[in-house]
């Protein structure tokens, strides 16, 4: 029995070697199918995970208040009045469910340190921003009260800005030239990485809002307000409260529509990750089609060679091979080719995923389920289409098989 298995293995390997082209094409079909499915699904999983990671990096329970109506087709958002610092104070004072209310006014400027310069987003805000945006101070400190009220020229910088302007030197106490004034770096933010839209969240400079209003924008406007709710607060209720308060402060009549909008970031992030999941499903389906096409390719190759194989089986039977010995040989041949193709496919997919996730700054999540599924599917195709024609041929009379045209 053992001898028979060994013989069948030897015969199968000889058959693979002497039909190199056919073997190669069979393996190739499986490699492409398996590789594509695994790569697509793994990348999709990584993207979904990346977005869900960003949901938590955004800060929990964050609402964003902006002037203008809700974004969307046919809606006008430009021209609506911005907010004032008094609005921020009112929100903080009158809605107890809010833990932190941070005004934001931004400006894109060129920063200069020595001979280095770098264009970045300068945001004027207050200390509540660190809470609302879920930022941690990696070194130094946040703003002091007198710095906020007096609008002193101090700033806290993001990690990308530090890298671009200070290199490996410590930025604390360093002087940053912003347009026509110089500000002192008092703190460094802990790095967050890429944002949900692919933007670099660490490319940021924070200053007290009065500093930015006085020295950069030259007006009292607050363009955005970030509001962080207390844990356990009811989001819908808080949004209603904010809306009511803002309508009142903006003196909107009953018949008028809101000229501001409140967004729930968590909801946006969830919508985004839902979209990515749909995309993953779509890509997976495309890849599954390629697996199927690979399978059909294998089927074609096997069927094209059926005449030659039938005659070969006739020869083997005529010189004394038993039916099950011939079948065992063909089964081993199919298993070896399918397994080889599957393993190469998995390896290639692994390498491709490793490279692509690194390139796209995504986490690499190895998914044993999809690896197994793709492997089993391809193995079944390879074995069925390799083995079935052989089974039919081996059941023929040797003389019929020999004369097969």
């Amino acid at each position, binding site marked *: 029995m053992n001898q028979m298995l060994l013989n069948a293995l030897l*015969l199968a390997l000889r058959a693979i070697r002497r039909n190199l082209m056919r073997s190669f094409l069979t393996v190739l079909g499986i490699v492409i199918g398996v590789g594509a499915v695994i790569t697509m699904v793994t990348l999709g999983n990584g993207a979904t995970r990346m977005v869900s990671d960003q949901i938590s990096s955004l800060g929990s329970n964050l609402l964003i208040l902006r002037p203008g109506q809700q974004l969307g087709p046919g809606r006008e958002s430009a021209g609506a009045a911005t907010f004032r610092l008094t609005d921020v104070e009112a929100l903080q004072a009158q809605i107890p469910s809010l833990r932190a209310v941070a005004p934001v006014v931004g400006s894109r400027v060129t920063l200069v340190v020595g001979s280095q310069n770098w264009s970045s987003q300068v945001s004027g805000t207050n200390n509540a921003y660190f809470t609302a945006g879920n930022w941690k101070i990696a070194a130094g400190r946040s703003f002091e009260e007198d710095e906020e009220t007096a609008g002193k020229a101090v700033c806290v910088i993001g990690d990308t800005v530090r890298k671009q302007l200070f290199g490996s030197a410590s930025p604390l106490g360093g002087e940053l030239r912003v347009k026509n004034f110089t500000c002192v770096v008092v703190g460094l933010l802990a790095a967050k990485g890429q944002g949900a839209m692919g933007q670099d969240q660490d490319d940021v400079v924070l200053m007290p809002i009065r500093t930015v209003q006085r020295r950069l924008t030259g007006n009292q406007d607050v363009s955005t307000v970030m509001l962080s709710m207390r844990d356990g607060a009811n989001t819908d209720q808080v949004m209603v409260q904010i809306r009511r308060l803002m309508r009142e402060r903006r003196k909107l009549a009953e018949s008028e529509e809101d000229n501001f909008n409140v967004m729930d970031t968590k909801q946006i992030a969830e919508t985004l990750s839902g979209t990515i999941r749909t995309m993953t499903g779509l890509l997976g389906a495309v890849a599954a089609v390629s697996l199927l096409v690979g399978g059909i390719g294998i089927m074609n190759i096997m069927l094209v060679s059926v005449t*030659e194989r039938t005659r070969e089986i006739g*020869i083997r039977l005529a010189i*004394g091979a038993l*039916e099950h010995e011939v079948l065992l040989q063909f089964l081993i041949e199919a298993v070896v080719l399918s397994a080889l193709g599957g393993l190469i496919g998995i390896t290639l997919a692994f390498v491709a995923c490793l490279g692509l996730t690194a390139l796209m700054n995504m986490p690499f999540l190895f998914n044993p389920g999809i690896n197994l599924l793709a492997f089993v599917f391809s193995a079944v195709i390879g074995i069925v289409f390799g083995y079935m024609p052989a089974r039919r041929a081996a059941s023929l*009379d040797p*003389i019929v098989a020999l004369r097969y045209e």
Partner: protein
Amino acid sequence: MTQNGVGALLISLRKVTKTYGEGTATVQALNGVDLDIGQGEFVAIMGPSGSGKSTALNILGCLDAPSSGHYLFRDIEVDALTRNQRALLRRYYLGFVFQGFNLLSRTSAQENVELPLLYRGEDAVHRHDASRRALAQVGLTGWEHHTPAELSGGQQQRVAIARAIATQPLVLLADEPTGNLDSKRGHEIMELLVSLNRDQGITVIMVTHEPDMAAYASRVVRFADGNVDSDSMKVAA
């Protein structure tokens, strides 16, 4: 039946018939054939197309089973055997040479010759030695690693003969072995078969339609309409 060193009775067909097809489309290929062949004979089976000579050879070679009648190979009742048992009979006692050579393509001469030894379960060393010896016997030393595509028709038929005799069979069955060869190569193949019959005592049964090839045999059996028409023994010169 002791003429030309002919030994004991090896093969015996009794009232063997073979019918192909079903219903009104049936073809009676063999029609109650009686035939005895002794060990060590060189028999040529001749006859026109459709006379049943090839069918008879396939039944003698256990490639096909008779529809009725009895086939005794030594003491074995072949008509009572299963498919696998007939395969084993082929494996241990019979060797085949076909008109179309029927070698495995893209496979070296030596691996082709080794194939029946492999199914016999011989080990690698014995396979190697026996296949080399068989190839040397048919004059193909030095051609062991050539594939059929690299060999001439005559050489391919020699490889097929080497494959058939590598297992040292009792009977060598040849179906028009010279049919695809020119006359010169045909005579060379026949001389090879004669020497195998004479020197090793292998019984040779050959189907042919060429009288000058049949002349090499010691006995000529003529088929007509699915039965033996004449059976003549050549008198030793």
